[in-house]
């Protein structure tokens, strides 16, 4: 290494140790002075004289320290600071340019970062587990006939399958986890107040197999699983909110479903379980008490540990080192095919073979393809917005620096170094991009959180720094290339440019204008595509919002009730009916009913197989007659506001001992009975064991969500439908349903103080939530469309304003030759209208192609909607006119005399 390099290194090191070096040097100097003083004193001077002589001999200490400090480190940064100050002054001199650039970057790059971060979290982010490449979710294509299943069909397995895979498949670990209920939550209590918390029952190797460590205490062991130990591991977030991260949390009691569990550990920060968008609060080992059946199912239907055909256990696996996922899967498949038929009739010859598959251990198990597709659409839209934003900034930079060609020429002529000017330009670009980046980061922070909330992802979302860095880096490169262009021009022309430069000579070159025009046309075309897309999505949302529901959800409040002290079916009937009676007496309540599946939440019992009056249902094979079902309470249809077309609603008289009845919808009656007059017919299951009399036909209405099509459906009353552990109460009130909530809480607390209202919300909100994804995408698309319009407006304005200012002299000449102000205004407007027209012509086919793409990836969207196209074109033209109006008006006020005299 050369001496210079060594010196530079020493100086750079000192940048970070300046203060310490100062102190050390102070000490060194004072020790030296002290020794000098002692020497002089020894030579016979008085103390005061010696001190003075020492200082004289040593020289000026302050100056020395200053010099020392300067030469210890480098002056490079002082120069940078000077450049920065100068750059900031330059930016402050053109505040509109600066603000427009920074805002453009903030919106464009920030939105891009936010959308990408959410997409990354959902599509790509891995679980925070050790060596995640060997950890997989286990999926299956189906389960054997005779199996009873949870509804989460791809991910559920039976206990025999779990055991067989664990013991025979040669996998390093098989981790099992079971949600506490269908909502994933269970009633818990730390102090006095009951509340809900999300949790899983897990196998003993859950934490060790995933390689998740604990913040505090321990994870589980095999023993905990085998003993069904009453121990619990809580999440870091739950620890923070309920125990303020107190170290003595270990050994404290958490009541889950009224049973005490001893807290033995806190899971590593950042690990929120393996349930995707639902972050978990706690984990307990497999339990054997009836209250802890899988998914909160009634124990009477069979416990998950002993009911061999109950497919309810979710599995993850860790493959052994050196074994490829393919090999591991092949081995597991063989074992799965045998174990799947334990407890159910053997596989029929030629029957479907169910296939296992391994899904990577991502934060979100990749099941929801629709969501992923929609996210990709969003990503494409935000990418286009980013394109517009970046081209805007680059165009503004070009325009700005082009006007400075003469400044550079003058500075060159005055002897400025080329390097100095280049560095100055670089600093300015850097400053702009940095300011924009900072603003973009702040914007992305908010936008990511908002997006996460809208998408109902409760897990911790952070904007992705890599994305931001990438976009900013790209922009920086562009800013440098285009920002330096006028500088190159000035340098190549040399200082003599300034000597012959005048307004007429330094006019923008025709090539520059052509490039600018092409960019504007492209921007307008992209903007049109975005606007059409936004129009289509918003139109789709509007039609969804106005879909007739066939019922009246206004004024309805719904909440779940899960009694803890109910052990038999009859106790359940009595409890739920008593609560219904009690709620009916609350002032303001008009009617109360219950349902097993909350309407609008997406849950449904789907079955097949009916016999009508002992015959095939209206020409369909009995076994193939598919239908949906729900179990409800008395007065259900009156409460929901559904019209009863024939017969009657369920009533309090439909008790467990009364004749068994059911109610069907229009579609069911028409499809399986061939007539709306279905009352009086008898519907039985194919075995003929259970028959029910049809007592009513109701109008078709939405059940699982707003977007569903009408399907055959039947309802039975819960007192004739076997055990229920949890029912959703529908309460119709006068006025605002939310206002009555506190009263209802009190009433329920009187019945059982440990029983929380589960997920209370208005029934309208439940339905709104069923299209929340569509709503989210439509609103975001609307935002992007608006963003694009704003960006186009600023970009167009900036470019036109710049061009008009460059054409002052030309306009002056025209006016001197007799051009009218009107003509000048029209000249400017005509220019931008032409560009807009070409942009529209280019954009419409693109928009149509994009529309078709949208149609294929988003459910129920129609790609051609003339209103969207007309709106988009009008929007673009309007913006072009507005953006040109100000520069045009300025052109009209050009004073020909002044314009010609200038320069």
């Amino acid at each position, binding site marked *: 290494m050369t001496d210079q390099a060594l010196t530079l290194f020493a100086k750079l090191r000192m940048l970070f140790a300046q203060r310490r070096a100062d102190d050390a040097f102070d000490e060194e100097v004072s020790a030296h002075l002290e*020794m000098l003083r002692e020497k002089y004193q020894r030579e016979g001077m008085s103390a005061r004289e010696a001190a003075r002589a020492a200082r004289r001999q040593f*020289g000026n200490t302050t100056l020395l320290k200053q010099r020392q400090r300067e030469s210890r480190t480098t002056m490079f940064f002082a120069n940078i600071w000077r450049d920065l100050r100068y750059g900031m002054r330059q930016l402050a001199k053109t505040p509109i340019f600066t603000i427009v650039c920074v805002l453009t970057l903030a919106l464009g790059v920030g939105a891009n970062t936010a959308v990408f971060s959410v997409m990354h979290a959902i599509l790509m982010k891995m679980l925070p587990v050790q060596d995640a490449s060997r950890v997989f979710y286990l999926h299956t294509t189906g389960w054997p006939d005779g199996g009873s299943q949870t509804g989460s069909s791809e991910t559920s397995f039976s206990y025999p399958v779990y055991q067989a895979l664990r013991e025979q498949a040669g996998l390093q670990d098989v981790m099992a986890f079971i949600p506490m209920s269908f909502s994933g939550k269970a009633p818990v209590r730390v102090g006095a107040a009951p509340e809900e918390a999300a949790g899983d029952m897990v196998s003993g190797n859950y934490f060790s197999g995933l390689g998740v460590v604990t913040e505090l205490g321990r994870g589980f062991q095999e023993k905990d699983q085998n003993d069904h130990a009453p121990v619990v591991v809580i999440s870091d977030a739950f620890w923070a909110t309920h125990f303020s991260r107190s170290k003595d949390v270990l050994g404290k009691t958490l009541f889950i479903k009224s049973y005490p569990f001893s807290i033995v550990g806190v899971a590593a920060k950042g690990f929120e379980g393996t349930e995707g968008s639902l972050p978990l609060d706690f984990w307990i080992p497999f339990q054997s008490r009836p209250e802890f059946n899988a998914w909160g199912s009634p124990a009477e239907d069979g416990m998950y540990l002993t009911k061999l055909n109950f497919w309810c256990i979710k599995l993850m696996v860790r493959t052994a080192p050196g074994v490829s996922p393919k090999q591991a899967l092949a081995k597991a498949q063989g074992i799965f095919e045998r174990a799947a038929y334990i407890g159910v009739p053997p596989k029929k010859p030629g029957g479907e073979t169910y296939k296992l598959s391994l899904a990577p251990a991502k934060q979100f198990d990749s099941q929801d393809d629709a969501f992923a597709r929609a996210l990709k659409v969003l990503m494409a839209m935000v990418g286009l917005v980013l394109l517009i934003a970046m081209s805007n900034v680059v165009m503004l930079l070009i325009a700005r620096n082009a006007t400075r060609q003469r400044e550079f020429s003058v500075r060159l002529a005055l002897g400025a170094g080329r390097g100095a000017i280049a560095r100055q330009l670089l600093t300015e670009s850097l400053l702009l991009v940095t300011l924009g980046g900072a603003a973009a980061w702040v914007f992305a922070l908010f936008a990511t959180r908002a997006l996460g909330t809208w998408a109902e992802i409760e897990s911790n979302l952070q904007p992705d720094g890599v994305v931001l860095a990438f976009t900013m880096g790209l922009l920086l490169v562009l800013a440098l290339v285009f920002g330096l262009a006028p500088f190159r021009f000035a340098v190549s022309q040399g200082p003599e440019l300034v000597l012959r430069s005048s307004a007429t000579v330094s006019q923008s070159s025709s090539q520059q204008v052509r490039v600018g025009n092409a960019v504007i046309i492209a921007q307008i075309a992209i903007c049109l595509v975005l606007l059409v897309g936004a129009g289509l999505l918003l139109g789709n949302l509007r039609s969804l919002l106005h879909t007739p529901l066939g019922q009246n959800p206004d004024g309805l409040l719904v909440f779940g009730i899960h009694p803890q002290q109910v052990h038999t079916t009859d106790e359940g009937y009595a409890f739920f009916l008593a609560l219904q009676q009690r709620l009916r007496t609350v002032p303001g309540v008009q009617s109360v009913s219950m349902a097993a599946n909350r309407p609008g939440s997406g849950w449904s019992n789907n079955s097949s197989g009916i016999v009508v009056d002992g015959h095939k249902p209206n020409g369909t094979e009995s076994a193939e007659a598919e239908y949906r079902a729900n179990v409800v309470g008395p007065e259900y249809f009156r409460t929901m506001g559904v019209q009863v077309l024939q017969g009657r609603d369920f009533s309090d008289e439909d008790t467990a001992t009364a004749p068994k009845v059911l109610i069907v919808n229009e579609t069911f009656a028409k499809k399986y009975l061939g007539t709306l007059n279905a009352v009086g017919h008898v519907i039985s299951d194919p075995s003929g064991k259970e028959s029910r009399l049809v007592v009513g036909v109701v109008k078709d209405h939405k059940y699982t969500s707003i977007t569903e099509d009408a399907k055959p459906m039947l309802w039975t009353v819960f007192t004739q439908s076997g055990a229920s552990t949890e029912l959703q109460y529908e309460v119709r009130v006068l006025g605002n349903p939310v206002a009555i909530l506190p009263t209802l809480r009190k009433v329920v607390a009187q019945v059982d103080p440990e029983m929380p209202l589960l997920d209370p919300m208005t029934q309208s909100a439940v339905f709104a939530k069923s299209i929340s994804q569509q709503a989210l995408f439509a609103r975001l698309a609307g935002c992007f469309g608006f963003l694009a319009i704003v960006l186009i407006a600023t970009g167009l304005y900036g470019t036109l304003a710049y061009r008009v200012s460059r054409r002052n002299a030309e306009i002056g000449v025209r006016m001197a030759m007799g051009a009218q102000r009107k003509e000048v205004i029209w000249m400017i407007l005509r220019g931008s209208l032409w560009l807009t027209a070409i942009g529209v012509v280019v954009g419409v086919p693109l928009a149509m192609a994009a529309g078709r793409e949208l149609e294929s990836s988003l459910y129920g969207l129609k790609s051609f909607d003339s209103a969207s196209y007309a709106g988009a074109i009008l929007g673009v033209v309007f913006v072009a006119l507005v953006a040109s109006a100000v520069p045009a008006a300025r052109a009209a006020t050009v004073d020909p005399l002044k314009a010609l005299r200038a320069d």
Partner: protein
Amino acid sequence: MGADKSEVLQGTLDLMILKTLQALGPLHGFGIARRIEQLSEDVLTLNEGTVYTSLLRLQQKSWIGSEWGVSENNRRARFYSITKRGLKQLAVETENWERIAAVIGRVLALEAKA
């Protein structure tokens, strides 16, 4: 220009310090200043602070190293010592100096004759 003059002086001082450290081993700033004072026999007067400017420069070039230690009268002090690079540099500089001194000497002798 002033800078050039100090350049020569600095170089001289650097060389003197290197030689001192080579000859006497590790020394603190005060010790170096005493040694130079002693050798120059009051011909060279210098602000002792200047020694430190030189020491810093030499350190940045890795010709000398430093270490905190305790002085003979029990004071905490920084001891400087010459490095391998410094020894090499000293050899080069010494040769340079001798050559230049010889040239200057011859030139001055010429002047005297004429």
